[in-house]
Structures are given as C-alpha cells and as structure tokens.
C-alpha cells in the first residue's frame, strides 16, 4: 500500500475509520438538543395535499431539537458486526455554536467530554488528563466510535446555507412530504443530495444522504414521538450507514430541558477539564 496514492489513505486515516461522512442534519441537532417549545403542535394542515413552505419547514426542523439553550440526557447504542456498545451522555447547548457533551457511562469512558465552540472541537480525556483539539482532517472521523462524525457535531447549521431546497413529492404512507436538498454549486462536502421525509404534523420521519456519486450513503430514521421538555418530538433516532451491513447507531433522548439559563463558562476549555 506504500504505493497507494495518499488521498485514499488519508481518508482512511481519519480518527475512527468506520464512518466517512459529512453530515449535516439531525445528528448534530441530536447531540445538542434544543427547542422552542412554541413551535410544538403548530401547523397541523387540514387539507393534506397542500405543500408547506419549504423555508419555514426547514427552519422549524432546524429548531426542533435546538433552542436558545438546552440540557439533555441521552443514550447511544452502537451496533457493529463485532460488538454492541452503549453510552450514556449528558449534553448542554447554547445557540447554534456551542455544545458540551460528557459521557456518563460506561465507567471506562466516564468523564470523556467533547466541547464545540464554532467550528472548533475539543475532546477531554480524563484517563490521561489531556484536552486535544480535533484537527480539520479528522472532522469526518467517527465521534466516540459511533456512526456520527465529528463533523455532524459542527456543521449542523450549514443545511440551509449549502443546499437548495424544494418540496419534491407527496408521500402517502406515511403521510407527509419529501423535501429534496441539492448541494449548491461550488460547495465542498460529502453530500450531493439529501432527501427528507416530513410528516404532515411537520416532524421528521426519515432522512437520506446521497454522496457525490449519487449513491445512498446513510439513512436516519426518527420514531418514538413523545413529549420531552414540553415539546413533541421523535425521541429515538437511528443512523444506518448503507455500505456496512449490521452497523447502526441509535440515539434515544431520555430527558430534555429547553431554554435553561446556563453559566457563561459552560462552554470553555477550563470547564471542559473540570467535571461537574
């Protein structure tokens, strides 16, 4: 492999090798729950075949798991061909730019934390008492061994900026609308197209990511709709990469509180190393 041109290698040498994917989307939202409870239950259309306004729809969905601030507890289950692993997390978010995620279980990884401020991502590793910034070249690497990438934590807000969106077609079962997002010319990224299925009560059902060669790379499904933090949302998300059989990452929200005042130093490096 010495002779192999390095781009291939380089790509493979990303932090956790399993997932290569620039994700936009929910995953991020996932890790950084937030919400404006006002939006819950709004806009239940009476006459179904009238397409919603796509901009408003995307804004609403962007806002679904996000708010001015949030504190969430969640559980991640990673199923791989060789093993199954579960993590319990606690996550704080403020706005679109700041997030702190701390692993609470299993004990071996307890206290491991990720801080996101803007485009920067740091990991704190309590075992060796080190804080390490994730380099840009590793943004497509897996986050903590899950199918989420580091990029998923950082790039969640670029969906509307990088993609041209439109209502694509009507779905009858389940009832809803397929929204197609095509990458704008000149935007560098992994996805050429994202399709999402949104129910008539404007909750996400499914999201498909197509790579630059037009192939389906991964699918995210949303279910178990319940009321969390005063807002109705799918609490269970499943991310399935297409090319790895028997591989998936599930994320389940256990509880969420929205619009909680957070101390200013929550999203700082010193706080990252000082576990609560």
């Amino acid at each position: 492999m010495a002779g192999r041109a390095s781009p291939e290698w380089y790509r493979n040498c990303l932090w956790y090798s399993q997932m290569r994917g620039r994700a936009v989307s929910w995953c991020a939202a996932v890790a950084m729950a937030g919400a404006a409870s006002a939006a819950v239950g709004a806009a239940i259309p009476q006459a179904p075949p009238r397409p919603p306004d796509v901009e408003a729809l995307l804004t609403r969905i962007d806002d679904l798991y996000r708010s001015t601030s949030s504190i969430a507890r969640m559980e991640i289950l990673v199923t791989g061909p060789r093993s199954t692993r579960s993590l319990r997390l606690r996550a704080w978010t403020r706005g679109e730019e700041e997030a702190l995620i701390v692993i609470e279980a299993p004990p071996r990884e307890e206290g491991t934390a990720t801080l996101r401020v803007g485009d920067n991502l740091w990991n704190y590793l309590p075992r060796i008492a080190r804080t390490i910034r994730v380099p840009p070249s590793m943004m497509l690497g897996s986050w903590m061994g899950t199918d989420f990438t580091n990029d998923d934590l950082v790039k969640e807000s670029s969906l509307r900026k990088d993609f041209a969106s439109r209502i694509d077609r009507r779905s009858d079962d389940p009832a809803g609308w397929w929204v197609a997002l095509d990458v704008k010319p000149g935007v560098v990224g992994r996805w050429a197209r994202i399709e999402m299925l949104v129910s008539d009560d404007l909750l996400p059902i499914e999201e498909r990511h197509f790579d630059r060669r037009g192939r389906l790379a991964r699918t995210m499904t949303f279910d178990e709709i319940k009321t969390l933090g005063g807002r109705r949302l799918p609490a269970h998300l499943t991310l399935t990469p297409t090319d790895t059989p028997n591989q998936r990452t599930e994320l389940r929200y256990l509880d969420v509180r929205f619009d909680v005042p957070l101390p200013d130093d929550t999203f700082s490096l010193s706080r990252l190393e000082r576990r609560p």
Partner: protein
Amino acid sequence: MPGFTMSRIAWRNLWRNRRRTALALAAIGLSVALVLVYDGLLRWESDWLLQTITGPMLGHAQVHAPGWRKTRDLDKTLRHASALVAAVEDAPDVADATARVYAPALAAKGEEGFAVVVIGVDVERESRPTRLLAGVSVPDPGRRVLMGRQLAEQMGVRPGDEIALVGQGVDGSLANDLFTVAALVETAVDLVNRQAVVMPIDEAQQFFVMPDEAHEIVVYGRDAERAAALAEGLRARPALAGLDVLDWRALAPAMVSLVDLVQAAWIVVLLLVLIAAAAGVANTMLMATFERTHEFGMLLALGTSPSRIVGMILVESMALGLIGALTGTAIGGALVAWAHHTGIDYAALTGGGPSSLSVFGMNWSLRIYPRLALVDVTRAVLAVLATSVVASAWPAARAARLQPARALRD
C-alpha cells in the same frame, strides 16, 4: 595436418600487421566492456526498483482479511496472527513473514491534535536490512514509540517528548494513552515519514484491544521475481483459506506500470548499445578484411583454394574475437565489480544533486550498485564474437571468389 597449418598461418597473420590487429582488438574489447557495463546498470536498475518497492513496505505478497484493503476498517482483522505468520513461513519459497497493525489515531503533544496512522510492527523483523526500520535503533519496549520525521516536525515533537494517542479500539471503546517518542525515523516510505507512529505490535494490539490480531501479513519470498507464484502457493494453503492473498504486482499496479515503463526504456537503450557495439566491430573487421584483398589474390594465384582462405580468415577472426572479448570482459567486469563495491554516487555525478529522490511515495536512493550475471557476459561475448566472425568472413568469401588477377589488381 591442414587445419593445424592453417591455424598457425592464421595466428602468424594476426601479428603481421599489428596496428590492424590492435585496432580490431580494441574495437571488440571496448564493445564488450561497454555492453557489460550497461548490462550491469540494467541489472542494478531492476534490482533497485524491485527492492525499493517491495523491501520496506509492500513485501513480495501480503495477506489481509477480506475487504480490509478497500475500507481499512479497524475491525476487519486477521485472527490468530502469530499462528498465521507461522503458517505462512511454513510454506515453500517463503523467506519470512511479519504481521502489522494499522490504525488511525489522533496524536497530540499539546492541545493540537494531528491525524496519524499507528503502525504496529514486529520490531525485530522490520529492522532487518532493506526492511521498514532498517538502520533504525529500536527503542526498549514500554509505551515508547517511533515517529515519522516529517510528522514530528509538523507536530513540533522531539525525541523524548511525551505524546497522547487517542483512537478507537476494535470493540468500539475509546483507546487513549500517553507514549514517549523514543526516536524519529526516516524510512524509505513517505507515508511512514509523514503520518506514522510506529510501535511494537504487541503494544498496538493491546492499545486497540485486538489481542493476537493483525491487519496485514507481509510475506517475503526467496525469489523476488516469483512473487505471483508465491502468492498462488499461499492461497492454496488451508490455513489461509478465505483470506486475501495478493502479490505486490496486484497490490501496487501503479508500481508495476512504473517498473515496466522504466524497464522498457532501459531495454531499448540496451538494444541501441548492442547495435552500436556490433556496428563498431563489424566496421573494423570489414575494413581489415577488405584491406587484404590483394593478399588473397596472391594466395589464389599461388593455388590456395577459396575455402581455405575463408577458413583461415574465420580462424583469424575467431581468435581476434576471443582475445578481444576476454579483454573486454576483464575491463567491463572489473569496472562493474569496482562500482558494485563502492557504489556510484549519482549526486556526485550530477554535481551535488540530492542523494535520494522522493517519487511515487517512496524514497529512491540514488546510489548505483551495478551487478552482472553470467548470462550477461555470455550474451555480450557471443554477440560480439558472432558479429566479428560474420563481418570478416563475408568480405573474405567475396574476395576468394574473385579471379586471382582481378583480386591482385584491386
């Protein structure tokens, strides 16, 4: 004893015109020497390509778990690696084999993280001559690693510094620990210099939670030229059933076309050198024989049969050819032997250029060590001998068929 007499006359003829003989000997000798030196370079070039490509990284063949080569997934490992290495080494034509672990990781001296590849290697085997760590002083075990020099420069790491490595275990868990950089390494492989952290394979296996597992087994055969047969033989071993076994030509097709291209260019030049050598010999021999048309006319007039004249010339040119070829072999052989011993510094030849070249992800040493095989010598000697015999026998036969009076006049 006509044959004997003929030989004596022929031998005496050779020394009658010393200038002519010396000229012919010089032409033949120089041609043989030239061809031999070129053969020596050609052989060095082919060894050099093969060794630079297969020696440190590729090996002659490799064994992987199915699918690993495409995705490089950490968990697509070869189980029972040490038993597999033993099974590979048991196969005929295998000189030795060594297991490696490749894992992406994040390395940091301070807060800045860098993408690296952790390569777990069998330190003893990889330290052998021409291998990955040839010439590297290997650190004592115990969380001590080697780091590629360019990577270290980029990270600002110096020997003795402590670095954090963060990766993912095969079981999905978080692998993180502190290691001491024992030394910086500059290998023949760019990837290693730019991206690698090298550690003993058992420590890598422990770090990435993959006991007795590996990603790659590198196999070295007894004969580098027979890599395809080597891979074929390994594929048939029951211990390796279901695994990917490929020879270096299949592993690095880009390298194969490079080798073929370079080889073709060299062979074209070899042909030109051979033609030039043969033309020089033929020219000298033709002139030397034409010059003697008058003498042949005299012999014909005295009643010598044309066939005896041709026979005499054949013996003469054969003797010339042999003496010339032997001298040429001595000169060429000595030149090649001397150059093989000391090596030719290409950098010095080109007036202080680089001593190695980094192309195709490899560092190519620019020190030239030519080498000859018996077949090269035989081929050069026979070719030049045949040329000199044909180039003298043809004008002799022509002269011998002339009317004596006409030949005398010429």
